[in-house]
């Protein structure tokens, strides 16, 4: 079952590389996504057996992150359906700099997307650090063409930075793996503990402390680069702002979590080896610094997709902080990961819709979304409220629990900094989001002029912008899920969350 989960998207991806007709590609995409989601759902009913000598095993945190990934992929692939159908495959003009560009081939897009899914699945089920590393590296490589889908200079620049920075980061993580291997080698130099999470946790007492510490640093920095912890996050705003919104949603919602999972795994080993305090300090530091950096870039941010990317940095910071705090914080981190993924994906999808109509990413120029795109306007505001942790959305609960963890552990200064930074982010985002939604656009977006009748007035303009179901339903579904999580956490999920928290905090 686990193998099927991985191989299904990979194979589908490989097949789709050789297919030309758009409709076939789209149906492969959707079918794979659906089937993958079904399989993932199946893992909730029946625990899949471990395969490859326990290298692949779906434990509670893995299942949690796999489910997020699979769900997001399904939702975004429905959105991608509409997106790909809408996309103009010929040469067209870039709206920012006015140059001509084309898209990558649709088959390349679908192929990479599906392999991307396969690799993320692999990350979630890998119990072996080496394999985990391979999977994370593979996600970087397959997502690069996705970011460079619109073939223009800015996306190219973003792709280059993405590859360069993430590769360097991942290389460091590899060194971390080797350090871990050294740490796991016994004094004779011949016998060693296999690099499986469970084996390492069980044999933690025999691990060499300095090497484990070094391994943790390298993995933290390495995977932290991928996860987007400041100051290693620098690729994130570029890649998110220049890639198609579907991809941004997946990067933010699924990929970052995968890197987070990798950090959790090594942290788990550290805790077992008695280095809990050491790991906590680093995670706390990274968490707070990420929040600070994100906050300072969110305030008066001029590009709303970059804004969302910085918001991801902020939330990765919260996740790191929460795990660093321990106690309730670990549970909160698990819950927060779900909530953040759903909300951020929703926001990116809505951002895609806004971008498609306004042809601008400027937070200062866009006005009156609610007057011409009423559903998207509502979704944009809902997303804003959800991502900033307002009730009744899920992030409220998880962010509150993080605060509780901080105060329970007696970290008053951290709690204050956390609240203060959340407050700054809220203020900054409120200023931007509300202004975007409210009022009327200064001039109507002129993209599909055929849909507009002459003498249109601003007040009646909404009738001429069609909000297609494929573009608004996916974010609506995500929004409803995140609202539901704020009001009620279903029992199976609750149990998995608790077990996941127990696993990653080494109990």
């Amino acid at each position, binding site marked *: 079952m686990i193998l099927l989960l991985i191989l299904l998207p990979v194979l589908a991806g490989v097949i789709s590389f050789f297919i030309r007709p758009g409709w076939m590609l789209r149906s492969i995409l959707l079918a794979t996504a659906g089937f993958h989601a079904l399989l993932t759902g199946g893992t909730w009913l029946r625990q899949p057996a471990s395969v490859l000598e326990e290298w692949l095993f779906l434990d509670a945190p893995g299942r949690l992150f796999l489910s997020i990934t699979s769900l997001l992929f399904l939702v975004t692939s429905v959105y991608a359906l509409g997106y790909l159908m809408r996309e103009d495959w010929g040469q067209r003009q870039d709206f920012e700099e006015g140059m001509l560009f084309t898209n990558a081939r649709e088959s390349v897009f679908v192929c990479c997307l599906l392999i991307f899914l396969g690799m993320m699945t692999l990350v979630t089920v890998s119990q072996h650090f080496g394999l985990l590393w391979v999977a994370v590296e593979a996600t970087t490589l397959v997502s690069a063409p996705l970011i460079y889908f619109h073939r223009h200079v800015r996306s190219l620049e973003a792709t280059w930075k993405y590859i360069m920075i993430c590769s360097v980061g991942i290389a460091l993580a590899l060194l971390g793996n080797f350090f871990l291997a050294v740490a796991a080698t016994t004094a004779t130099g011949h016998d060693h503990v296999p690099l499986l999470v469970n084996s390492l946790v069980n044999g933690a007492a025999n691990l060499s402390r300095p090497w484990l510490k070094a391994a943790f640093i390298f993995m933290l920095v390495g995977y932290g680069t991928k996860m987007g912890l400041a100051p*290693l996050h620098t690729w994130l705003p570029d890649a998110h702002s220049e890639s198609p919104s579907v991809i941004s949603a997946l990067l933010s919602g699924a990929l970052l979590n995968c890197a987070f999972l990798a950090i959790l795994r090594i942290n788990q080993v550290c805790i077992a080896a008695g280095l809990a305090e050491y790991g906590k300090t680093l995670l706390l530091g990274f968490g707070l610094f990420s929040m600070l950096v994100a906050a300072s870039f969110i305030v008066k941010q001029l590009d709303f997709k970059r804004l969302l990317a910085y918001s991801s940095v902020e939330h990765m910071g919260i996740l790191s902080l929460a795990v660093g705090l321990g106690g309730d914080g670990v549970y909160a981190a698990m819950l927060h990961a779900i909530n953040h993924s759903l909300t951020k994906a929703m926001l990116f999808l809505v951002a895609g819709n806004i971008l498609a109509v306004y042809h601008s990413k400027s937070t200062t120029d866009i006005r009156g979304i609610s007057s011409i795109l009423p559903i998207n306007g509502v979704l944009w505001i809902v997303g804003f409220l959800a991502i900033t942790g307002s009730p009744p959305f899920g992030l409220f*609960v998880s962010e509150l629990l993080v605060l509780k963890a901080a105060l329970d552990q007696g970290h008053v200064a951290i709690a204050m900094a956390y609240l203060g930074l959340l407050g700054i982010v809220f203020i900054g985002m409120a200023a931007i989001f509300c202004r975007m939604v409210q009022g009327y656009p200064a001039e109507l977006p002129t993209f599909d002029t055929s849909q507009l009748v002459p003498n249109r007035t601003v007040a009646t303009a909404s009738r001429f912008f069609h909000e297609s179901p494929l573009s608004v339903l996916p974010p609506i579904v995500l929004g409803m899920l995140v609202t539901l999580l704020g009001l009620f956490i279903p029992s199976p999920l609750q149990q998995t969350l608790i077990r996941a928290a127990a696993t990653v905090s080494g109990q």
Partner: protein
Amino acid sequence: MGILFFTSLGVIQFSGLFALALGRQSRLANSVGSGGALVGALIGLVPAVRLFFTGQIMTVYRPWNIPYGSLSFQIDALSAFFLLPIFLLSAVCAAYGAQYLLPYRETKNLGASWFFFNTLVVSMALVVTARNGILFLMTWEIMSLASYFLVTFEHEKNQVQHAGWIYLTATHLGTACLLALFVLLARESGSMDFDRFESLRFHTDAIAGMAFVLALIGFGTKAGFMPLHVWLPEAHPAAPSHVSALMSGVMIKTGIYGLVRILEFLTFPEAWWGGVLMIIGLTSGILGVLFALAQHDLKRLLAYHSVENIGIIAMGLGLGLFGIATRHPVLACLGFAGGLLHVINHALFKGLLFLGAGAVLHATHTRNMDQLGGLITRMPWTAGAFALGSVAICGLPPLNGFISEFFIYVCSYAALGSPDISGPAGAGIIMGLAMIGTLAVACFTKVFGVVFLGVPRTACAEQAHESGWIMVVSMIILALGCVGVAGAAPWIVSLMNPVIARITGFSAGVVHGHLTIIQQPLESVTRISALLLAGIAGLALIRHRLLARKAVAQSPTWDCGYSQPTARMQYTASSYAQPLTRMFGAFLQTQCQYAAPDGFFPQAQSHLHTHTDDLFTRRIYEPVFRTMVRLLHGLYWMQQGHVQVYVLYIAITLLFLLVWTL
């Protein structure tokens, strides 16, 4: 009892949803939304009122699949005391709003507006009944958000957008403190349930003090304690008037509720708590009314008056805290009773005044008082109701505002006799209250005089007309409420026994014993009020007799011989307030733009324009925010676009961590 309560909430919420679903069918959505709110709120009044007669506390507890959450509600005396104005004012504002919003039916989505209005009502009711920290915070924040969307009803105006942002920011920062507060309480008690908080006895003063300060900031932001009040003068003018009335009348009182509820958990208050609250009360009261005096915008002025009245409430609560801390149960009972009674009174007259302001706005399309005048002949009902509200808000007898201030006065005079710190506190409050009272008189004679009396200054005032009957009836109901509370004052005291007992933790008998002290004076006040009204009637009769057989002449106003008086020569709001604004110029810092007439026959138009910004916004918040933005932008160098630099960050991080930890 619980069923009735939840039925009422259900009716309100579902009618809101239904109105939302009706969406563009504005007229229908309008009726459904407001009708549902009206009916639901009236139903909701029943359990609240019944509690005072039966004394039966309603409790509902359900587990909730949210960490530390439980669906736990309770209507006790304190909740019921706040539910009364919430439901009453909601019902009145809903009815009023139905007519008020009709002109917007073409341009606005009224369904959405009513959805948020009804959500606001429901969330307020839930806030004052929630018995679990998570539940409380959720309903609290939903209340804030619903009111935010109501404030931004006319979101196409830049000013409204700005006001909305300020409100959202303020309320969110306040909530942040509340999060910390509840988490702190949960840490001490091990649960988020209020019942567990109650069993908590804070022996560590530091923790209790911290909780008090957090509550003060968190709830104070919503209530509008100075200097946390800055959102009020922005949000209230921006919101539609029935919403302003509801927000100013009851929503900000949920802040008072929260504070009082938290005080109930913190059993052993210290004297400095009372001192802080009292100083806040004095500051809010005096500065609130001063800033009100300097305003030209009718609704902004009323918003500042909310700050003032919250200040009066804070003084009452501060005295109450003093009383508990220094073991003077009389002070505790009278202080809390006065503060809480003022909550209801303020809800009534401020609701009335905002509805009146709305009627004026509806009729003249301007909030600038200097463009109005003479409306009393055009809108007699509105003018009458507004006059009554003005007298009430000034705290003058024979209306309800006086009753609560009387409590606080009596309490302060009583405090004078005590040898400890309560004495000076009482003296401070007497002086503050006296000053607030006279300033309020100055302010409301200005409002009433400039808006309703004299002759119209502009065409928009000239063409004004009386509002629709629903709006008028709504105002009259609130006006009757003001009179009713004043008339029933001696009986209301006994109704407040359980409320005060709940807060102070004294037994009902003790509270009753202390509150009866004021029973007899209140009866006297009522008697004097009645005699006063009779006296006025008698004098009117006498004058009528005296003038009966004589020819009563009419002539233009005596203008000291000037031959061609125009309406523009009347005293304006600004000129009326000028002596006082100059006297307190150090606080108000009114900015003045003045172009003097030049030469014997001035050609260029001369003009004078004064503007009084909020002192705290201008001197504290704006500089602080600017500094924050500048500091945060200090990190902009991080993201300059050079991939080499980005890799350098990775290298530096790595080296730093290695050197630091290895």
